[in-house]
């Protein structure tokens, strides 16, 4: 079997080029000419289109995993407005809240993309300070749930069109209904509202800020305070998954190291230290050198059908891009599955009734994690090939593999991809972007988002194709072979160590909370914050993160409620009614937060 490596790399490169091209188009587009801070209708449109891109299938699964993340969203909006540095910093800032964000089983708890695109546009367009970005963006993220339900319900219509094409044995028709028909609708519900909200909203934010600056400046302080505290919610959400088992001490190690360094550490360096610690932990607890018993049946199946590696690859590319393009409540990724099988069906079957039966077989309900789940597709392709070559394989047997494996693979896949790969890579990208000082950096480093884009492309594509091909070569036993090898478990344990370590460091660089309370006791100035500092630097941020973690993990308080309380406390607490001291040591009224 000749491998067409060229084709593989061309497809990969094409996706990156597409993404870079859109960046270039934006750079060439006229940037704001009148005033620095306004957002033209054209720029607003591009912001809307980017948000659609993030939810679209056109970037080989880098839409949802890359473009949808606030770090990248902020960068792109910054590019549109000719203020990349600020955009990167804002994106990183907003992203803190969504580090532990997981969308599983078709749910969308908050919308990082909306918070990222619209949030950055409002902050930049409205002329708001970067430090306050999170308090503006966080409530926006809640609105995303509305369009999500609409999308999932409306797209439930399309599978019925595909059913008709399948009846006729029309392969192209089934493919088309997956990747084309939903897209104008998605464009409409994603790009248009965001365009209008960005355009009108940035003007509204601008005038609201002018009013606040003139009449109630403490509200601004409230937004800063709330943003600094919301970062604690983002980290605590992540800790809900990480802070368990015997790896929790690494959270405190990461925190203490960063805290001792005065918060000014290069997080890439810190990540490397963390990775070394993770390796040592795994070495001592699991034994890295010891391979498990050699898994039987690991040898490749003897090729016995007409499929070439190219056919299998073509199917994978269709899945990679279009697994979610017609995601809907009724069949979830069913249409994506059928679409990915179209090159296989085309090659294997010639009779119309065989084609029709195969299309119908794969248009049924299916839902898994797209990257790790690709092992299922590989195995199903192998079964289809054997069936077409005359083996007795029933529809039920094929369905049993699909429905049996999709759940377990989704569980493992979401843990690995959304729980480990994305947060850790993002955290490193965010730290590079802001030089380790997310809360206070006013301009970001474009290398951060670039690091994230490139790492994700390698990880997501590499993992997806590897598993897809293993599934095809080994059949369904590939699943047990891979799970039994023990590598996965070591990776999960190691990632838990690294994740805790990095989260500890992020508490220092992301969360800001300090108090301005001060008293004059017998002629001596007594600043409460100094007391905290003498115990331990960054004590308040640490306590806040642990408090929120406790509320989330032990008391089942909803993150939305915590978010609302934080914003309220931030703003109301900034009303200057509290005792404080001015520089001369005279008693004045201050806000709670300093």
């Amino acid at each position, binding site marked *: 079997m000749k491998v067409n490596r060229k084709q593989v790399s061309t497809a990969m490169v094409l996706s990156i080029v597409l993404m870079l091209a859109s960046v270039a188009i934006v750079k060439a587009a006229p940037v704001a000419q009148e005033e620095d801070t306004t957002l033209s209708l054209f720029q607003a449109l591009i912001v809307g289109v980017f948000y659609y891109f993030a939810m679209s299938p056109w970037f080989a699964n880098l839409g949802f995993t890359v473009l949808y993340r606030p770090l990248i969203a902020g960068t792109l909006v910054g590019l549109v407005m000719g203020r990349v540095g600020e955009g990167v910093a804002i994106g990183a800032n907003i992203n803190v809240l969504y580090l532990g964000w997981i969308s599983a*089983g078709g749910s969308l708890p908050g919308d990082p993309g909306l918070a990222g695109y619209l949030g950055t546009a409002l902050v930049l367009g409205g002329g708001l300070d970067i430090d306050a970005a999170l308090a503006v963006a966080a409530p926006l993220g809640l609105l995303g749930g509305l369009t999500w339900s609409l999308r999932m319900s409306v797209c439930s219509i399309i599978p019925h069109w595909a059913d008709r094409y399948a009846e006729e044995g029309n392969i192209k028709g089934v493919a088309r209904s997956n990747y084309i028909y939903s897209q104008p609708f998605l464009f409409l519900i994603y790009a248009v509202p965001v365009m209008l909200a960005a355009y009108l909203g940035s003007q509204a934010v601008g005038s609201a800020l002018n009013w606040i600056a003139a009449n109630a400046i403490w509200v601004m302080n409230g937004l800063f305070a709330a943003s600094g505290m919301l970062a604690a919610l983002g980290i605590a959400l992540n800790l809900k998954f990480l802070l368990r*088992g015997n790896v929790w001490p690494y959270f405190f190690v990461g925190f203490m190291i960063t805290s001792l360094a005065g918060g000014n550490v290069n997080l890439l360096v810190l990540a490397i230290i963390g990775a070394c610690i993770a390796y040592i932990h795994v070495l001592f607890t699991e034994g890295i050198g010891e391979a498990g018993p050699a898994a039987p049946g690991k040898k490749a199946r003897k090729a016995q059908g007409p499929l070439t590696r190219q056919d299998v690859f073509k199917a994978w590319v269709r899945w990679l891009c279009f697994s979610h393009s017609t995601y809907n409540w009724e069949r979830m990724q069913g249409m994506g599955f059928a679409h990915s099988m179209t090159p296989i069906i085309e090659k294997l079957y010639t009779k119309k009734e065989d084609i029709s039966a195969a299309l119908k077989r794969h248009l049924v309900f299916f839902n898994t994690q797209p990257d790790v789940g690709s092992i299922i597709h590989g195995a199903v392709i192998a079964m289809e090939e054997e069936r077409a070559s005359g083996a007795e394989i029933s529809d039920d047997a094929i369905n049993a593999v699909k*429905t049996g494996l999709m759940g377990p693979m989704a*569980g493992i896949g979401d843990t690995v991809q959304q729980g480990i790969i994305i947060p850790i890579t993002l955290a490193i990208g965010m730290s590079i972007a802001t030089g380790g000082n997310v809360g206070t950096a006013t301009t970001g480093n474009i290398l951060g988002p670039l690091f994230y884009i490139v790492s994700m492309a390698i990880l997501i594509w590499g993992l997806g194709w590897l598993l897809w091909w293993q599934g095809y070569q080994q059949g369904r*036993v590939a699943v047990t072979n891979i799970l039994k090898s023990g590598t996965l478990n070591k990776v999960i344990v190691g990632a838990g160590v690294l994740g805790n370590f990095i989260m500890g460091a992020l508490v220092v660089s992301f969360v800001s909370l300090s108090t301005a309370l001060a008293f004059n006791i017998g002629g001596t100035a007594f600043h409460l914050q100094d007391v905290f500092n003498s115990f331990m630097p960054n004590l308040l941020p640490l306590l806040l993160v642990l408090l929120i973690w406790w509320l989330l993990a032990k008391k089942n308080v909803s993150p939305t409620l915590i978010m609302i309380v934080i914003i309220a406390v931030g703003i109301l607490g900034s009303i200057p009614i509290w005792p404080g001291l001015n520089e001369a040591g005279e008693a004045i009224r201050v806000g709670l937060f300093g």
Partner: protein
Amino acid sequence: MDDVVGADPFMQEVLGLAAPPGLTVDVYTVDDALQVLSNTPSRSTTMVLMKTPQTARRLYDGGLHYNALNIGGIGNAPGRKNIFKNISASREEIDILTDLMAKGVEITLLTVPGEKSKAFSDLAGKV
């Protein structure tokens, strides 16, 4: 518990390997599960997973009178209608659930932990 998976060693192995560390997975056919659950009550917290309302009915009729049942997901298939998010059910399945509800089982629909669960009684009249 499922008659098909209960007889399929490969799927049992996959389920065991896919479970998070610290959890033990036992797979039984429905009849065996009834035996095990009624005769050797476990003191540790046990989550009973089933694939269809039909199985839930067999469990109940077999004498295990549970008082709460959550529906986490039923895939769409010919004859099934979408009732809530990614949960679908056929007429027969809805009737089974309605009947269980009438017997005092509190039925909820919750697809992902952490979300708000929906009571089946809110849907019962409409589907």
